[in-house]
């Protein structure tokens, strides 16, 4: 393990203070131009030096004909050039004294033939000049805390806590909007790795493990090249930081003619199941799960046990959550007499105080957001709650109108009320330090969900997804304890 984050080869890439850029022009259809535009739209604060053989300016920045001509030795260089001139370009950067690069250009190992040779040449040049680089065949790097968006799509400037390393080229770029629209989240730092000719996913885990802005690490994996190191580093990092991986399985490289049962029974998918579990990594079965798990686990304290209470005021979502809990290895204990007594005033005769707690209808909204969850969080038989959040705006508005709130004040009053609710829930999360995982069929365009999420209460998009995320938290806790116990 690295002794400090600044020792990582990725540190100068993710925290660069100056950039030289090959492959951007004033032609908007070029990928290089797109990436440079994204960097500029992200308000990157350091100097950027485009290198261009003909243009005097590129996207209003002074352009330089040759890397030799730029006035400083930059922290990092982007190379988005035709394959055949990438090696010589990296060499020129090396001569200039530049030691870090993101090589976006494709056409190397992934195409075979001459590309394989060129990738070797790239590695040799890097070795000669002590250069560390990501790619080739990758789409850049994001550090939302350093206003660096070195990818192809611009995004709204928001910071996040999910650290990501991806072996799929533009995947990280596409997921920024997804995270923002569903959860109001973003990557803290994200690396696209491409062919991993120099820096690989193990380096990323090590970096993200040490990154103070990263609460949870997400991995998109196609194949692991340094197997033993992967396990070693992931075991170390997962003692303090959760790692969630999505493996796009089925790589045939692991298979070969085997004579034993063991050989015929093994395949990369099963092996990766074992590798992840051994490494303390939670395996997500879909991309949705990958980010659900990252989001929930990064937002919440870990549950002490697998015993959870479901709070709902609708039978269907509650039953669906209960069903999914069982499949995710969670238990739904019955409530103790003390808790039942506390709940009695709040649950109408139409409701149900068995777990799931189905309130059906609350006389006062604050019951649902304060008194009831308080009683459930104090319950000794369980260690966390899953809550169905539903405050339909139309219902709230009509209630307010009945109460005599005027048309002009309606919108502001409704917003104020849902904001108060989210404050109540957030203060309970703070006070009890137990998981409160929400679920709803409403999304962030509804103010109530936005408020909850922005106050740090994870709200997932269905009962099943919330239950699975809760199950992943329990599983992470168990894996972490196992690794700490084995000590090494």
């Amino acid at each position, binding site marked *: 393990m690295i002794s400090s984050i600044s020792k990582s080869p990725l540190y100068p890439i993710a925290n660069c203070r100056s950039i030289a850029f090959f492959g951007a022009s004033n032609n908007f259809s070029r990928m290089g131009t797109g990436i440079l535009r994204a960097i500029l739209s992200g308000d990157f604060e350091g100097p950027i030096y485009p290198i261009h053989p003909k243009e005097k300016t590129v996207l209003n920045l002074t352009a330089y004909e040759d890397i030799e001509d730029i006035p400083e030795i930059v922290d990092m260089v982007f190379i988005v050039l035709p394959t055949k001139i990438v090696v010589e370009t990296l060499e020129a950067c090396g001569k200039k004294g530049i030691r870090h690069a993101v090589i976006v250009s494709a056409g190397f190992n992934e195409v075979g033939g001459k590309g394989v040779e060129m990738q070797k040449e790239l590695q040799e040049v890097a070795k000669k000049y002590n250069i560390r680089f990501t790619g080739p065949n990758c789409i850049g790097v994001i550090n939302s805390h350093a206003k660096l968006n070195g990818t192809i799509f611009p995004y709204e400037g928001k910071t996040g806590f999910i650290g990501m390393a991806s072996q799929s080229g533009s995947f990280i770029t596409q997921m920024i909007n997804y995270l923002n629209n569903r959860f109001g989240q973003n990557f803290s730092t994200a690396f696209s790795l491409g062919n991993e000719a120099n820096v690989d996913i193990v380096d990323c885990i090590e970096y993200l493990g040490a990154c103070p802005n990263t609460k949870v690490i997400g991995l998109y994996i196609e194949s692991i090249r340094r197997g033993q190191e992967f*396990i070693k580093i992931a075991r170390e990092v997962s003692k303090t930081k959760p790692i969630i991986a999505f493996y796009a399985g089925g790589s045939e490289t692991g298979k070969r003619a085997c004579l034993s049962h063991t050989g015929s029974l093994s395949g990369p998918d099963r092996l990766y199941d074992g590798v992840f579990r051994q490494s303390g990594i939670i395996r997500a079965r879909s991309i949705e799960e990958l980010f659900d798990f990252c989001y929930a686990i990064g937002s919440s304290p870990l549950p002490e046990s697998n015993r959870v209470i479901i709070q709902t005021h609708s039978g269907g979502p509650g039953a669906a959550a209960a069903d999914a809990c069982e499949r995710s290895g969670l238990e739904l204990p019955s409530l103790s007499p003390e808790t039942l007594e506390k709940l009695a005033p709040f649950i109408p005769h139409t409701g149900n105080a068995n777990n799931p707690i189905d309130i059906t209808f609350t006389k006062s909204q604050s019951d649902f957001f304060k008194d009831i969850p308080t009683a459930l969080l104090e319950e000794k038989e369980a260690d966390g709650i899953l809550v169905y959040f539903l405050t339909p705006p139309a219902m709230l508005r009509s209630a307010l109108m009945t109460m005599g709130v005027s048309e002009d004040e309606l919108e502001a009053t409704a917003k104020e009320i849902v904001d108060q609710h989210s404050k109540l829930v957030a203060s309970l999360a703070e006070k009890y330090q137990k998981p409160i995982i929400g679920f709803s069929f409403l999304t962030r365009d509804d103010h109530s969900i936005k408020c909850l999420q922005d106050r740090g209460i994870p709200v997932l998009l269905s009962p099943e997804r919330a239950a699975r995320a809760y199950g992943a938290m329990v599983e992470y806790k168990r894996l972490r304890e196992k690794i700490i116990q084995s000590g090494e």
Partner: protein
Amino acid sequence: MNLIKTAIAKGQTALSEFQSKQVLGSAGIPVTQEILVSSADEAIKAAEKIGYPVALKACSWELMHKSEAGCIELGLADQESVQEAYNRICEKIQTPLEGVLVQEMLKGQREVVVGLNRDPQFGACVMLGFGGVMTEVINDTVFRVAPFDKVEALDMINELKTSPMLGTFRGQESADLDAICHTLTAIGQLGMENESIAEIDINPLIISPDGNIKAADALIILERSE
């Protein structure tokens, strides 16, 4: 390991069951009590030493999947059956034999498979699965990359869907989990320390009603030298 070196020098691409079990036994993995014989008289003597009933198995590194070749005789309860079985094996099998194995018959209906193979990225990988003739049908297997410790081995056991059968099960004692853990970690060690071992199969590892475990059959495949 000398036994492996000698086998490779002789051009073997696998170890016989007898040799495989010697390798496993030296790593502290419990194996069946067995004696290699080369005549019917020796077989009877061996059977008496081990105690009836016994099993007879044709033993050669070239016989990798014995049940299919029809060279196993099970549940032999007296001298006469041992003699007859010995003769049947010698008639049936054309492959040159190292000898015939006289082996104790294990009691126990619970069977697991333990194995080792090599992955190009991860190296030696250890497998644990539901064992016996239904192995491929039940298809319940878990993997770890060597080296790993007892804590990890125990997690492997818990990961099996069929792991409840290793606890107290239908009037039988819980399996000796310590011994299973040791078997798993030791297989991993064998893989780490012997580059010339390509694959290992222990199928089945039988769990007796009192919970003890023993390898009933074993196969070590050697790395084909280029």
